[in-house]
């Protein structure tokens, strides 16, 4: 298992390098201009000077390697220095990946935005799994029952309707019509006592539920079909013939087997939820990395877009690996060595 993990980690390096190059090339080929948002009164020569000062005068490959060096060497070094308070080499002259529009280091921007996203996305995914697994189990056990039919119907809706629609719909109902919940997520809100906790709960519930319903719709379907695949297998009959209660048969014997493929789907789906959060954060004005990415794209802030996209790619590659490793842990028949 360890050898397999190390090998997979080594394989991830070329994958990520290729991905970073493709992202960089795509952004370079795209017709965007970091001076596009500036007032029209600025003459073309000045615009050209701005571009040169941003490093756009250098050839493509130089800029790419610069970014690689800054992100993969300078930033980790900087992080080490900050965490342990040491100084490695000439840190003052080391260039960091800097946002063109805000002039602050990209990594600092991301770190300041990450907690909000992690709270909303992470919580929504936990909620989604907690909803989806029981629904999937019950739907499969009571196949074609009323519960199953309703579950199927709701999942189809949840899966088909995009989050920007459900999000807006929820705002219209709960914020505009009923006035129960705030439509904007206040990132500066700090939980200190019970009242502020309730406020936090009120503002987080809508973005979390919108994302959770979307994920849960998908996951519950996977869970249901995986349970159905297992319910008719011989070992289930053996467990019943041993006199095990239905709950043991279902929740120990069948569930453990059914979870194997579902865990993979859960792990692989997590990076996608980050992507889905981009839109949801936009709707509920959550100050997360999704919103940061949207602003960066609109302002042609190439270093920020490049870095954020690369982080998403990194998440996808990592969760792929995690999914494979979980598979090996859950299913004793799979051994990687």
């Amino acid at each position, binding site marked *: 298992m360890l050898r397999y993990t190390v090998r997979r980690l080594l394989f991830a390096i070329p994958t990520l390098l290729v991905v970073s190059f493709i992202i960089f090339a795509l952004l370079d080929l795209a017709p965007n201009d970091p001076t596009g948002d500036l007032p029209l009164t600025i003459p073309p020569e000045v615009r050209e000077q701005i571009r040169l000062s941003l490093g756009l005068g250098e050839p493509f490959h130089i800029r790419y390697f610069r970014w690689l060096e800054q992100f993969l060497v300078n930033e980790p070094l900087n992080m080490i220095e900050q965490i342990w308070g040491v100084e490695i080499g000439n840190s003052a002259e080391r260039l960091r990946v800097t946002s063109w529009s805000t002039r602050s280091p990209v990594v600092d921007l991301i770190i300041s935005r990450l907690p909000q996203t992690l709270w909303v996305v992470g919580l929504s995914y936990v909620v989604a799994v907690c909803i989806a697994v029981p629904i999937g189990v019950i739907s499969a056990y009571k196949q074609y029952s009323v519960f199953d039919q309703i579950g199927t119907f709701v999942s189809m809706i949840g899966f088909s309707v995009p989050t920007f629609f459900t999000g807006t719909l929820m705002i219209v109902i709960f914020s505009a019509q009923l006035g129960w919940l705030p439509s904007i997520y206040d990132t500066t809100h700090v939980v200190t006592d019970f009242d502020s906790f309730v406020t936090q709960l009120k503002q987080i519930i809508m973005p979390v539920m919108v994302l959770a319903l979307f994920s849960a719709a998908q996951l519950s379907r996977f869970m249901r079909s995986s349970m159905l695949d297992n319910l008719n297998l011989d*070992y289930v009959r053996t*467990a019943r013939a041993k*006199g095990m209660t239905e709950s043991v048969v279902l929740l120990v014997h069948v569930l453990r087997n059914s979870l194997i493929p579902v865990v993979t789907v859960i792990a692989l789906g997590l990076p996608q939820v980050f992507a889905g959060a981009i839109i949801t954060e936009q709707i509920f004005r959550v100050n997360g990395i999704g919103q940061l990415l949207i602003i960066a794209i609109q302002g042609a802030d190439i270093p920020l877009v490049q870095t954020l996209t690369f982080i998403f790619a990194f998440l996808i590659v990592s969760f792929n690996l995690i999914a494979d490793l979980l598979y090996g842990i859950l299913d004793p028949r799979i051994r990687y060595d």
Partner: protein
Amino acid sequence: MDQVVSAGGSILDVQDLKTVFGTRDGNIHAVNGLSFHLRKGELLGIVGESGSGKSVTMMSLLRLLPSPPAEIVAGQVMFEGQDLLKLSTKELREVRGGQIGFIFQDPMTSLNPVFTVGFQLMEPLRKHLGLSKAEARQRAVELLELVGLPSPEDRLKDFPHQFSGGMRQRVMIAIALACDPKVLIADEPTTALDVTIQAQILDLVKKLRHELGMAMVWITHDLGVVAGIADRVIVMYGGLIVEQAPVSELYERPQHPYTRALLETLPSLDEEREDRLKSIAGQPPSLGAEPTACPFAPRCRHAFDRCWNENPPLRRVDDPGDEALIHEVACWWDAAEGEARVGG
């Protein structure tokens, strides 16, 4: 007839069992009013083709069939003075695995692939006998030793896929025997195994039966296997018993045309080798309704008018005074005389 067979220390007494499968294309009558009994310490062989209702009958006894589609519409299964078909699910679970053990056909799929053999073996021990973890472990080791598994201590933490087919079936037998059941039902336990392993398992079962003295039902379509181990044989066709007799009696004087045809299909060791193996022409019936005629009539070489109009009941064909030797057959044709029976 019922009075006669239920006498003499029977542990399991099945009366008029009927199981129906509700499908989209109508009901399939898999078991059609079956009655039989199992004596204490006896090994009862049940033979028949695929689809003759052997497995469905046995699973109906413990209500192991998924419902829907299966439904037991009538009957009585007396075990230890209680009707298994009327027990609450909780009481039934006490019987399953605790007093009646079950061995299934395919050891490759009958064990749960993600739990260790030890876990699966200790589950019934802890549930039915209330053993602690350490006691259950101890007993599990003994059981694996009993079924002839080498180094049982180490194998407890192995997963099913780390065992060969024969070893897995030994594990299944150990699970079925775990709580010292009074009855062991084996549903084609050697069908999925190769012949050498089959012989080993048969030897094991003979040995265990001798040691533990429990009653067994052995379902198979292999007449050779039954001849080797059974005391008494039931031949099933179309969800009905067509013939039952002690094993030597059945092989010496088969009465029902189906039994005779089955025995003829066995290749002989000492006769001239034939070009083709013999078979019984036609397919076993799929019954859309309870049989009103003899279900075997379409494939029977002796069938005559009455067979198409009336389903023959079981009748004794041996000396009525002998209790130990009951030979019954359901056929309008008299094999001994070679002509139709007279009277009803």
